């Protein structure tokens, strides 16, 4: 049995449906421009390398991959691929490319380019932070070790067909094909610019890079030959860098900028939300993120389950949400609510300091103990940590705060015996793609519990690792629900062992000027973070 999914026609129809505010997508005139501001310089725009929330969405506008998501949602759809088939054993994917797609330099995009791009991202010389995502492709190990230049599993069938064979079934593979790291780059441009390709990106996306003045601005211009007719809407986007969030907000209020890319600064949040002029310009959305306290199960006394449970019951999460002005919802499990597999019926540990004290006594610590809580030293994280500190003190645990630079906290978490507790704020795991498996392996699985890893609680449950592998081998789309259920079970089982205190799931707030139009969902797009630039339109040219 071969399965054939969404074709171009179907995805176009869906797209039109999503965008049908206020008129149909075709009625929105192209033209106009917008200014987006950022504090930091934009780092590389090379899709194989760029991996921060600032360049993530920019790269998505400059390049295309085989797969993408419906704008404003987490629903997979085809992009450069017109269609695809999956073999019955779930190990062979055959993608049929859209005909007539060209790079910004005018050359036609072919299956050779897809292969080149995948070989390149896995090649250790590229130094791609995303190379590991392609681990399931046949031949990955040889290329990653520098012994081969080309992935055995990726073959060009004809100029418009590429076949990818996996060494094991991987239910997340289509998500991987929608990641920036898999985006298609033209070989001749990569070779021409070498290490500077990230400053001279050439892709096939909705926009092309027109100008980049280091430290000042980037200008994106509409790609008139973009294969998706009528997209993008704007003629030009200017990204201005080096602007503090507070300054960016003021400039927006004066009409000098359209989107403060770093969001609303925490200190201004309440003021802006209460201001009748600005509150309508704010769009709220969820985020595939969970803020948590990790407890290192290898460091006594956190090796005792009762202690970890006690901490789970001691922390007043509602108060922490109030500290950040309600910009989050209280969490009770590792998965965020918008992630497939989230268990709506799971209740978690109640806030009950008395019961927590009892548990501590049972564990042999009736008078509590002394420990350390590591925290990233930027607001509001130290304030949140103080609140946690006070909660712990109420049950007798004296936690000393270690407020450090981000890189130092991450380094401490990656050592087996250094950080007994970490508040994850400001460094918290944000999903790379909307699939529960992405919330397990690196941060709660055995694979992440290594020196320099991200599993800061050093929790390793081999039984759950087996279940996880089982869940990820369910590649049949018809069994999607079964797979998500299994993942949900894995995460609630983790909570039985309580290596984390899930504290909250942050909400996102994007502010945009009155000039800009487009469905709300694209301004808080869960994948094109922070904003899906391709579907924004300008009211002044309508």
């Amino acid at each position, binding site marked *: 049995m071969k399965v054939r999914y969404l074709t171009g026609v179907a995805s176009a129809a869906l797209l039109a449906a999503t965008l049908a505010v206020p008129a149909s997508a075709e009625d929105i005139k192209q033209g106009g421009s917008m200014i987006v501001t950022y504090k930091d*310089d934009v*780092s590389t725009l090379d899709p194989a390398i760029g991996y921060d929330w600032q360049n993530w969405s920019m790269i998505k506008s400059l390049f295309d991959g085989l797969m993408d998501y419906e704008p404003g949602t987490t629903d997979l759809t085809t992009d450069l691929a017109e269609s695809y088939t999956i073999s019955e054993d779930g190990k062979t994917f055959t993608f049929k490319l859209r005909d007539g797609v060209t790079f910004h330099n005018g050359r036609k995009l072919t299956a050779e380019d897809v292969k080149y791009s995948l070989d390149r991202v896995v090649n250790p010389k590229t130094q791609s932070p995303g190379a590991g995502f392609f681990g399931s492709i046949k031949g990955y190990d040889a290329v990653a070790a520098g012994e081969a230049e080309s992935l055995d599993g990726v073959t060009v069938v004809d100029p418009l067909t590429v076949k990818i064979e996996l060494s094991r079934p991987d239910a997340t593979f289509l998500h991987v094909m929608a990641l920036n790291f898999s985006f298609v780059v033209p070989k001749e441009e990569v070779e021409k610019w070498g290490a500077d390709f990230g400053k001279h990106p050439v892709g096939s996306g909705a926009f092309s890079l027109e100008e980049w003045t*280091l430290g000042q601005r980037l200008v994106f211009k509409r790609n008139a030959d973009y294969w998706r007719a009528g997209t993008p809407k704007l003629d030009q986007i200017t990204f201005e860098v080096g602007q503090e969030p507070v300054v960016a907000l003021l400039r927006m209020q004066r009409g000098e900028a359209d989107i403060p890319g770093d969001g609303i600064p925490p200190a201004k949040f309440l003021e802006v939300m209460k201001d009748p002029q600005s509150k309508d310009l704010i769009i709220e959305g969820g985020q595939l993120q969970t803020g948590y306290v990790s407890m290192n199960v290898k460091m006594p006394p956190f090796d005792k389950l009762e202690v970890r449970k006690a901490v789970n019951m001691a922390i007043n999460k509602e108060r922490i949400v109030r500290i950040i002005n309600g910009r989050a919802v209280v969490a009770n499990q590792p998965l965020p609510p918008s992630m497939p597999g989230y268990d709506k019926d799971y209740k978690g540990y109640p806030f009950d300091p008395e019961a927590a004290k009892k548990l501590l006594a049972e564990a042999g610590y009736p008078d509590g103990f002394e420990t350390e809580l590591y925290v990233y030293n930027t607001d509001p994280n130290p304030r949140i940590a103080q609140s946690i500190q006070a909660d712990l003190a109420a049950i007798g645990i004296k936690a000393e705060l270690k407020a450090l630079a981000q890189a130092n906290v*991450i380094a401490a978490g990656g050592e087996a015996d250094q950080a007994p507790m970490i508040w994850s704020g400001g460094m918290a795991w944000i999903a790379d793609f909307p699939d529960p498996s992405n919330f397990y392996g690196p941060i709660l699985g055995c694979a992440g519990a290594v020196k320099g890893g991200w599993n800061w609680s050093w929790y390793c449950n081999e039984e759950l690792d087996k279940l996880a592998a089982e869940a990820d081998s369910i590649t049949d789309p018809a069994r999607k629900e079964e797979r998500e259920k299994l993942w949900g079970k894995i995460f609630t089982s983790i909570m039985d062992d309580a290596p984390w205190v899930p504290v909250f799931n942050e909400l996102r707030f994007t502010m945009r000027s009155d000039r800009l139009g487009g469905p709300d969902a694209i301004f808080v797009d869960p994948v094109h973070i922070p904003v899906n630039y391709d579907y924004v339109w300008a009211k002044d040219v309508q």
Partner: protein
Amino acid sequence: MVSYVIRRLLQSALILLGVSLVTFILLYLIPADPARQIAGRSATAQTVENIREQLGLNLPFYEQYVRYLLNLLQGDLGRSYLQKTEVSELIAARLPATLLLMAGAIFCELLIGLTMGLVAALKRNTPTDTTLMVLSFTGVSSPQFVIGILLLYVFAVQLGWFPIGGYGTFMHLVLPSLTLGLLGAGWYARMMRSAMLDVLRQDFIRTARAKGLKRVQVLFGHAVPNALLPIIAMIGIDIGLFMSGIVVVESVFGWPGIGQLAWQAIQRVDIPIIMGVTLVSACAIVLGNFLADMVAPLIDPRIKLR
């Protein structure tokens, strides 16, 4: 004179070497692992190891340092870990903005400082004098981020006379120059005041008055030029002060210079950029002091360089 210049240049080279060594050691001691940082959170241990090897981070400290120096001699400051761009390119792109800001600041500090000092000297021991000296003291002792934010709030946000940060036109330059220059203005006001008082007591001023010159002529023809001489030599030393000030001022005003670059790099532990900017600043300071020393004997023949 020539031997003095050669000696000074050699000394400067030693100072720069020392600065590079100290900075390198400090950055080496930071507990963050650059390879892991470049690799990102999803990288496998193998990827991290590859990157470490490619950057030579697996080598012992002295080997890393020698490598860096050898590259430096060829003008290669390395590539930014996060931006992936040549550090020299990043600095070159931002240097003009910083130089422009410094020129603006020098103009502001001289204009404000010298005027204040002159007026204070002429109105010595009056309330005007006291007020001006209190003001100059405030200028010297106020942190620049406070002055900067205050100026920004009053003149850009409330009054709307100037743009709220940014770069490009003359109007963009005014507030950051003023912020950076106020500290120096305070110093110059005090120096100018005492220099003027000193000069006004001299015999040649009395002679000038005695031969019937007008007050204005005495002041600007004889007194001011003589009082200015020692002050001019100070400008070179100011460059060192500016180098610490630009990090704050450029960040407050969103000015795209090397100070802002340094601030971003420090927050993200982008070691090659921090090294590069530190070395460029050290060069500027050394050069500034050197120029100040060279100019001094031209202004005052009593000073001899040996």
